């Protein structure tokens, strides 16, 4: 009797939990980019500097996603051999933006500036990993507070809460 009740309660709890979590979890499907852009090709094989595309990193909070015009500087002289490149051309021709899925996210209550971190001498790979070896950029592991703190402690940066929280 007791066991039965426990199972029943557990089942109800699981059901409610499953219903509740629907839509809130990050599923791999949601990380599907409209185009399969390869960092390995661009940053690795072609050895393009990160800041060639993410040009605002040294001057602002965000690193920025390159505009399609920037892509076009190279891609206008590259033949559309692969389906993805053709898709890219279609976007460009139709004057539509590519809706990239944002994979690197910080919560709203965190103040982070790329500018100050680059100024302090950090490189992109310190936080983003070796993207030059990733053909598919994965969702960034959550940048947890302890992870930030460890680096701040090691490098003698400020550990005041209001440095990073707003």
């Amino acid at each position, binding site marked *: *009797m*007791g066991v039965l009740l426990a199972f029943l309660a557990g089942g109800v709890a699981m059901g409610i939990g499953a219903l509740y979590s629907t839509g809130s979890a990050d599923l791999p499907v949601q990380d599907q980019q409209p185009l399969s852009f390869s960092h390995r090709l661009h940053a690795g094989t072609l050895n393009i500097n990160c800041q060639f595309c993410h040009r605002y990193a040294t001057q602002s909070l965000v690193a920025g996603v390159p505009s399609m015009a920037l892509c076009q500087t190279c891609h206008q002289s590259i033949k559309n051999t692969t389906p993805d490149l053709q898709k890219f051309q279609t976007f460009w021709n139709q004057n539509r933006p590519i809706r990239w899925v944002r994979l690197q996210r910080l919560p709203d209550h965190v103040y982070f500036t790329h500018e100050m971190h680059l100024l302090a001498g950090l490189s992109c790979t310190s936080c983003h990993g070796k993207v030059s070896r990733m053909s598919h950029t994965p969702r960034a592991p959550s940048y*947890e*507070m*302890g*992870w930030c*703190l460890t680096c701040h402690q090691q490098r003698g940066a400020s550990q005041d809460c209001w440095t990073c929280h707003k």
Partner: protein
Amino acid sequence: MTKRPVGWEEIPVINRNLLSPLQTTTWRYFLWVGVLGCFVAAGAGAWTYQIQTGIGQTDLHPPIFWGSYIGSFVFWIGVSHSGTFISGVLRLTNAEWRRPVTRMAELMTIVALIVTALFVFYHLGRVWRFYYLIPYPNQRELWPNFRSPLMWDATAIFTYATASTIYIYLPLIPDFALMRDRIQGWRKPIYRWLAVGWHGSQAQWQTLETAIRIITPLIVMVMISVHSIVGWDFGVSLVPGWHSTIFAPYFVVGAVHSGLGMAVAGLYILRQTYRLDGYIQEKHFEKLAQLLMVTTLVLAYLYFAEQLTVWYGNVPDHMAVQNSLLTEMYAVPFWVMVGCIYLLPLLTLVWPRFRRWPFGLMVIGLIINVGMYIERMLIIVPSLGHPRLSFQWSEYFPSLIEFTIMIGTLAFALLLYSLALKFVPAISIWEEKAGRIHEYKTREE
């Protein structure tokens, strides 16, 4: 009414009488539990609604950031002092008459502490982040701030809850062993587990009694510290009307006052429900009434001392609070409170005949608790409502959601208590037996 037998032959009778509530359940009990369940469900619904929509479902607003939940928190932790005081202090002083009273009061302690903890959660603005208050190593590398009186409170209440659970469990072990032998069905394995192989050998009795003897003074100290700290939650702040050195002792005595009131009321109700007249006698009520008289006088003395100091000092910030109590906004609840917790008990309990009238004492016990509930609110609201910058003066009355949650929680407390009575005997069986034999032997000599 059970006839009270004499001598050791009465032991089987004691077993039968005190175990019968656990073995037989009437339809009235189910009805009672059902009704309580409805109230609890209403309270739970109200709380869920409050969590989903926001703590704004209360009537709180600046500068009154604390209200009925904290008031109830203080009240319930006061009620929890019934058990510890009665069984701790009386065990410490070896008062023989405590025997039939201790278990009921200790159960009250546990239930009240659970309810107390609930009110902390009702109160939190973001209750889903409650784990920020728990000290554990985490990746954020942040710990709670132990400089905050609220953390003292959390530590003290955790200690108190753990200690009280142990303290009620210790004298229950022999009773669990008894129930393991006497009660069949699904409860038997639980009792077997809880009785930890108790068989009543002298060595076991010796160990148990030593443990009780050691823990009793410790838990009395914990009890005093817990309510002192609750008092300091207010006392250490800057708020006019709170910032007072008298708060710690005042809160401790106040807690014992309402705890005793609740114990008297509970005792009467249990005695009537389970026909325990043979065990809970008029002399027990009389002793409790005497204790109540003492707490009434001490509390009145402390309260007078506090109010006199404020009045004579005549500091405007503090006078604003006192005036609002004595003559202005909160005068009605204030004078009702004075009547409930000081005047009425004083006027009635001075009569020796009244002190032997269980029903009257129950009424007084309940009135004291109503008064103490009001008193807890009156400590919080008028003080917060009169901050030093008079532009911000404000008033407060609990909202419907708050009332629903408070009533639901009261029902929850009663429900827990009623359920517990089906699991543990309301009177400590072995202590009752020991008391009878002690009485028998002393009579022989």
